[in-house]
């Protein structure tokens, strides 16, 4: 090979290498998510500097979800997957195993840095981890910071951008609490006594300093026995509970039974686990939840 041809070949190789490097540098992360709140968290952290891929369809119910073949295709396209990891998206691990991706895909466990609490009102008195950390403000902020840090480790060039976005988003979430406060000025909180259909609202109620008197169905999908239900109704009556929080998207005949037996007023809280994936969904539905809570507090305060 002549020196000229050798030089030309080296230049071509260098140009190709540079082109490849530029392509790699410009490659945006494909961030998978399992639950609606994580879509909002990631969207607000990454802005337009990463692509978000929901693992399951928007209208699928994440409670007891049965994995579908399309999920396996989606999961192979991801660079990283953000998971709840403590019991609310166990189907994601079935999909990981089925697609042979368990050891290949980077996982961000959003709850790594969250101080967990037990499910309230378990009739056995057991201390079982409550996985609903995303129906909250403080625990949500903790997850936002952690996700931003982990994404920054995977994409160091955008780490500062992610962190600044996380900070702004955290303040946006925190301001929801200020809005809630403004709504209950002058309300008589001493009269507020609540029960909940299930344990999904423990984190937000604890953050607001509101105690739960009874939980009808402490574990998702495990309905109380007739005896447990009767005991719960007795407890609600004895404690003079006047508010029952039920799930907005997933109706339960039990809530009607409780309402008829006790006379409590029922309010619906969103689990933030249904409908279209949007960046604003978490803040919008938490704002709606906090407004519902404020209404319940005010109306309980006015009750005789």
């Amino acid at each position, binding site marked *: 090979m002549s020196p000229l041809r050798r030089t030309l070949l080296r230049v071509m190789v260098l140009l190709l290498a540079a082109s490849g490097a530029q392509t790699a540098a410009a490659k945006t992360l494909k961030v998978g998510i399992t639950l609606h709140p994580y879509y909002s968290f990631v969207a607000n952290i990454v802005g337009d500097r990463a692509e978000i891929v929901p693992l399951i369809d928007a209208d699928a119910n994440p409670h007891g979800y049965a994995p579908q073949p399309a999920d396996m295709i989606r999961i192979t396209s991801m660079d990283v997957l953000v998971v709840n*990891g*403590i*019991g609310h998206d166990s189907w994601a*691990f079935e999909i990981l195993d089925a697609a042979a991706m368990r050891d290949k895909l980077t*996982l961000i*466990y*959003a*709850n*790594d*840095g*969250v*101080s*967990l*609490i*037990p499910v309230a009102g378990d009739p056995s008195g*057991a*201390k*079982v*981890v409550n996985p609903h*950390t995303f129906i909250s403000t*403080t*625990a949500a*902020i*903790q997850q936002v*910071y*952690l996700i931003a*840090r982990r994404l*920054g480790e995977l994409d160091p060039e955008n*780490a*500062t951008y992610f*962190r600044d976005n996380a*900070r702004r988003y*955290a*303040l946006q979430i*925190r*301001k929801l*609490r*200020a809005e*809630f*406060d403004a709504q*209950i000025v002058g309300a008589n*909180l001493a009269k507020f006594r609540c029960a909940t259909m299930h344990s999904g609202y423990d984190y937000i109620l*604890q*953050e*607001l*300093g*509101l*105690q739960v008197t009874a939980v009808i169905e402490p574990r998702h999908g495990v309905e109380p026995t007739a005896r447990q239900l009767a005991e719960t109704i007795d407890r609600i009556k004895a404690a003079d509970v006047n508010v029952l929080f039920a799930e907005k998207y997933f109706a339960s005949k039990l809530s009607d039974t409780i309402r008829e037996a006790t006379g409590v007023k029922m309010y619906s809280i969103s689990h933030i686990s249904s409908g279209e994936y949007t960046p604003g969904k978490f803040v919008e539905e938490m704002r709606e939840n906090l407004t519902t809570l404020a209404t319940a507090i005010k109306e309980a305060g006015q009750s005789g």
Partner: protein
Amino acid sequence: MTSALPMTEVIKPSGARFEAWVLAAAVVAVLVALTTYVRLQGRENEPAPLYDWQISAFDGLTGADQAIYNSLYTVKDEIPVIYDDINRFNEPGVKFRWPNLQDFEDWLLPPFHRDTSWEQNGSLQWSLHEPLAEGEMQGSTMYLGTDGRSEGQGSFLLIIGHVHAGFTNNNAIVIWWNEKNHVAMPESGFRDQLILQGWREVVAYSGDLEVKRLFGDPAEDAPEQGAENVDGLLEGIFGEQQ
């Protein structure tokens, strides 16, 4: 000519003994498998072994104290962010400072921010001790919350131990709880002296521990339990720790 002799074959009646043993073994195997599965999947969260000077936030604290601790646990992550915010535009030579109570108010940061949840959780009275000079208070910044109004409420102490002042070998943020409703600001942030005054370090049952329980140890870079090293966070902001 051959003639076939009649043959008689004696067939023993099929006994049920063998099948019964096989069936019993199969039932036992299924029961053992199910019991093991239930124990692995459905067991209660056993408390992690703690020292007697520690207390679990998960099953040791209740009510308002658990809510306050969980807020403080998030504050541990937010303090470096606020530290960045308040020191970002410092002129050269200006001493970097850690957030004070007014900063926490400005950031609407629970459990310090005086909103409804602060009242509902007992209206703890917070005060701050900053080390005025290197070596004073062994280099620790301490936030004390005491005199809560909820029944049976204890007191909290959040300590940032500073490596440059010789307090610790890392910049650790540790949360302590004292069962006494009223306590004075400790004279020292050192562990042994705090323990003598009745303080107990609060240990979270954090998500990484639950993930390990469920899946083994998939998260190699999970944060440590208890003391939170903020070196990494601060280095990301300012390079070498101030």
